[in-house]
């Protein structure tokens, strides 16, 4: 694995933590991954993950969800990533790194991002069984395993930021938890005495025991060497089964020391402004292992990211893109155990002659302090209990706030409390400090890059993708900017209507509008009025009118008058258009039950017209290959034999599938076939926002697959369970239980309400599964409305359904009985007896199939390209 001299230059990165990953991204952004071989040696058994959010593992985030990278990024940029294989030695003379596995990598540039290690105070017993640190996912897994198996009490040594998180995690694992902090207050680095007091109160209220001002002197162990307690510096002893050390971190600089790189007195690899080590121009150090040129080691992720960018820029050596790292803002905002804690700027008031403005309410666990310079400049501050103002205040740091400082810390309800929106900030104010994104950049994302949502802005600017603490401010900023630039998110149905389908439904119902033209001219967008509408709104409005036909006095026949012009071709010819311009025919077979005589009729018709037949998934028979002019002839015979339209062509009820049920099946507990037939006949012809499928199973074995349907019914010993919102297809979804053990009448009443509520509120072409996920409140809201009648509309919903049932007529029976309606069923207006010559068939497996080569004759030469675009 040793590259020959003169080959592609190689960058070796040691360490794949958050900063290491950011460095790789910075290399990729600068095109360096294309010009260099990039090798990454990672000690942990997994690639970079979000260490800042480590504790969220205990609230259910999986290690995979914490991951910061995917195989795709690594593969796309040709990066060689070796996980579980740390660098062991560096030979700077030969410019080679040896990994634990024995692999040797020659480098041109070496970047050390080895991070830090947890500091464990040198107390006796510190290595006992049951002692842990809190740094990696593996640490968490070990703590979890031990806590579940062997512990009821846990103690955390260290009351800093990580210590509090660790204590919260132990509590979450069900342990009685203690925090032991040597300093006189919690989070001594970030907050002052007042803030510590507010924090202490809130933490104790959560049931955590806090011991401040005491040190740990010894870990007490039993005969097997397992932890049983700890001796404290005040002479007391604390019984505990588990100890987590969280007493700060130290730079991991051993590799650097071993190869003779200069390190600081208190650790940290000494680097210059470009993050290049002072000892070797070919070696860089970034993140928590680096001692920056201001003499500090930065333990926060934001400065680490800045260092990663700086080092990448230095390696790229592009004169127009040179960065320096000379120090960083230590502002932080955290949510610790549900408590907001933030500190920013000169939080401890070290500036000469500075003044404090403090608001404190220990009862509410609130503490807010601002540090103000003599000239009124905001220098920094501390917020505990409510850090809402953090984003604004941090951005204002270094300037004189536009309102008095007092009003910035008073609670919102107080008389003089001022709320400074993000609009008050200057453009150069940094909103996302993790990625150093200014307000101006975010505004630019909206105004110049046409972003209209927070996710888009996040993608465009990276703001809010670090610690996430600025997302709230980001959202307000994006909204404000959208508003200012007059952008409104258009929720309208199409270019013709500004209303949603739901709003149009309400208009049609309230004003009893029975035509698309009328609706368009009265309620359409200004410039669409008087026009012809479009292929989106015409069928959508036709569907609404059809759903409401009896209630608004419209004709229930979908091909009457103007309605005929609104229908998709399927509805227009009451059949399903297939790829060669022929149609398929599906007669209704309610519940999938069919008598032999009727089966024979279908067979005879298919044979006489030469149709291809196939059994559908909805337990009926589809006949393919009918030309337009054959449809009335086919249906004349079907109607004559007692069949009616199966509405396979409509956005309407398709089938109610059933298993054989208690009549025949030894397991069945209810008559599922009868119920399926009843439901299918009740809802047949009901036009809806999208197709509706249903099924009834006669027992819990669920042979009818009812839970993959829009409404599914499963028999129980005492009645029926109703499930809603199921779907098969590309995005399968199991239906949710809406109500249990219903009688026949209760079931039908509930389905009536459910379907009418769906028809009323769904978007165009929105299946119940998507609708249920989308509507505010989801299933609970739907249950409230249709089961508990929370909106008081159930009477109306039931009445609408009763009207539908009462007015149902078979569309095909009506069509074949009316010569005027039959006139449309011709291939050519000027040659009614001539069939469309493009509709032709060839034999396959004893049946017919479309003559596909005939279809492609005379198509443009670039047929392949056409096919590609057709599938977009």
């Amino acid at each position, binding site marked *: 694995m040793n590259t020959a001299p003169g080959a592609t230059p190689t960058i070796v990165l040691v360490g794949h933590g958050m900063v290491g990953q950011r460095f790789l991204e910075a290399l990729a952004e600068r095109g360096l991954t294309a010009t260099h071989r990039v090798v990454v040696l990672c000690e942990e058994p997994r690639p970079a993950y979000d260490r800042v959010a480590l504790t969220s593992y205990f609230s259910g985030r999986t290690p995979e969800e914490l991951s910061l990278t995917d195989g795709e990024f690594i593969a796309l940029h040709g990066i060689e990533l070796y996980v579980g294989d740390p660098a062991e030695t560096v030979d700077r003379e030969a410019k080679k790194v040896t990994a634990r596995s024995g692999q040797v990598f020659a480098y041109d540039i070496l970047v050390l991002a080895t991070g830090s290690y947890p500091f464990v105070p040198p107390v006796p017993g510190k290595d006992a069984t049951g002692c842990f640190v809190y740094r990696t996912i593996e640490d968490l897994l070990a703590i979890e395993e031990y806590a579940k198996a062997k512990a009821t009490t846990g103690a955390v040594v260290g009351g800093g930021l990580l210590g509090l998180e660790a204590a919260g995690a132990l509590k979450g694992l069900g342990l009685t938890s203690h925090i032991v902090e040597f300093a006189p207050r919690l989070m001594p680095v970030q907050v002052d005495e007042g803030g510590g007091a507010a924090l202490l109160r809130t933490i104790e209220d959560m049931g955590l025991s806090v011991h401040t001002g005491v040190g740990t002197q010894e870990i007490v162990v039993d005969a097997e060497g397992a932890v049983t307690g700890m001796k404290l510096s005040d002479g007391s002893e604390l019984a505990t089964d588990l100890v987590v050390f969280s007493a700060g971190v130290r730079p991991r600089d051993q590799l650097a020391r071993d190869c003779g790189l200069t390190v600081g007195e208190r650790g940290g690899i000494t680097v210059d402004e470009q993050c290049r080590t002072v000892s070797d121009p070919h070696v860089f150090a970034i993140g928590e292992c680096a001692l920056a040129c201001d003499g500090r080691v930065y333990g926060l992720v934001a400065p680490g990211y800045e260092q990663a960018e700086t080092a990448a820029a230095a390696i790229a050596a592009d004169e127009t893109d040179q960065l320096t790292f000379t120090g960083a803002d230590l502002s932080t905002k955290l949510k610790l155990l549900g408590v907001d804690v933030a500190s920013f700027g000169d939080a401890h008031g070290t500036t000469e002659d500075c003044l404090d403005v403090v608001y404190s309410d220990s009862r509410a666990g609130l503490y807010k302090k601002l540090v103000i310079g003599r000239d009124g400049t905001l220098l920094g501050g501390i917020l505990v209990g409510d850090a809402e103002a953090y984003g604004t205040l941090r951005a204002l740091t270094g300037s004189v706030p536009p309102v008095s400082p007092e009003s910035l810390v008073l609670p919102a309800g107080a008389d003089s409390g001022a709320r400074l929106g993000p609009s008050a900030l200057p453009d150069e104010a940094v909103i996302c400090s993790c990625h150093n994104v200014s307000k101006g950049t975010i505004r630019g994302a909206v105004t110049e890059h046409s972003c209209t949502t927070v996710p888009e802005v996040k993608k465009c600017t990276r703001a809010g993708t670090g610690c996430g603490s600025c997302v709230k401010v980001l959202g307000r900023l994006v909204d404000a900017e959208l508003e200012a630039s007059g952008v409104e998110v258009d929720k309208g149905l199409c270019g013709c209507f500004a209303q949603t389908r739901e709003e149009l439904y309400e208009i049609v119902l309230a004003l009893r509008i029975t035509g698309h*033209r009328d609706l368009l001219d009265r309620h359409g967008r200004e410039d669409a009025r008087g*026009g*012809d509408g479009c*292929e989106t709104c015409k069928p959508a409005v036709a569907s609404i009118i059809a759903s409401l036909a009896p209630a608004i006095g419209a004709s229930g026949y979908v091909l009457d008058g103007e309605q005929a012009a609104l229908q998709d*071709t399927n509805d227009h010819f009451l059949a399903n258009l297939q790829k060669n311009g022929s149609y398929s025919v599906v007669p209704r077979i309610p519940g999938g039950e069919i008598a032999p005589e009727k089966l024979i009729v279908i067979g005879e018709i298919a044979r006489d017209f030469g149709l291809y037949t196939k059994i559908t998934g909805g337990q009926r028979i589809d006949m393919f290959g009918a030309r337009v002019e054959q449809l009335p002839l086919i249906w004349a015979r079907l109607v004559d034999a007692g069949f009616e339209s199966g509405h396979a062509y409509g956005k309407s009820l398709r089938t109610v599938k059933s298993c054989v049920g208690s009549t025949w099946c030894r397991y069945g507990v209810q008559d599922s076939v009868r119920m399926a037939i009843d439901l299918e006949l009740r809802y047949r012809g009901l036009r809806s926002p999208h197709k509706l499928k249903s099924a009834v199973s006669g027992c819990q074995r669920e042979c009818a697959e009812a839970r993959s349907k829009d409404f599914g019914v499963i028999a129980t010993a005492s009645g029926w369970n109703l499930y809603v919102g199921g779907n098969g297809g590309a995005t399968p979804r199991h239906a949710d239980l809406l109500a249990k053990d219903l009688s026949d009448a209760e079931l039908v009443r509930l389905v009536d309400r459910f379907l009418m509520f769906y028809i009323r509120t769904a978007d165009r072409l929105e299946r119940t599964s998507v609708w249920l996920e989308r509507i505010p409140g989801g299933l609970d809201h739907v249950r409230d409305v249709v089961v508990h009648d929370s909106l008081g509309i159930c009477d109306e919903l039931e009445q609408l359904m009763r009207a539908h049932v009462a007015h149902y007529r078979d569309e095909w029976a009506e069509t074949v009985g009316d010569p005027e309606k039959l006139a449309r069923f011709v291939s*050519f207006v*000027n040659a009614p007896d*001539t069939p469309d010559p*493009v509709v032709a068939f060839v034999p396959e497996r004893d049946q017919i199939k479309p003559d596909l080569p005939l279809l492609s004759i005379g198509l443009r030469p670039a047929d392949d390209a056409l096919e590609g675009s057709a599938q977009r």
Partner: protein
Amino acid sequence: MTLALETTDLKVQLRLADGWFTACDLGALTPGRGVAALLPDGRQVALFRDRADRLYAVDNRDPFTGAAVLSRGLTGTHQDRPFVASPLLKQRFDLISGECLDDGAVRVTAYEVRTD
């Protein structure tokens, strides 16, 4: 156009290379819908009438699928231009120019239409 005209026996004609071809009665066209007509040479034409009684004619063959179905598509107005959307894969075609609105590289033949 006036109502009086509609009641007369107006014919829909389209211009072919060798003159005007009579396709059908105006009454055979429903506003907002199309019909197909067979030309003497075997080609097919889709004829449309909009709600303002303007007439349009384009080739009936959908160039994306090869099926003769454009006459069965839904019509509409997009930025004041009339269009038909193919009933198969929904690509829209400008009824005046024949241009595909969803793929600039594709167009269908458009014919001049008149009533006589």
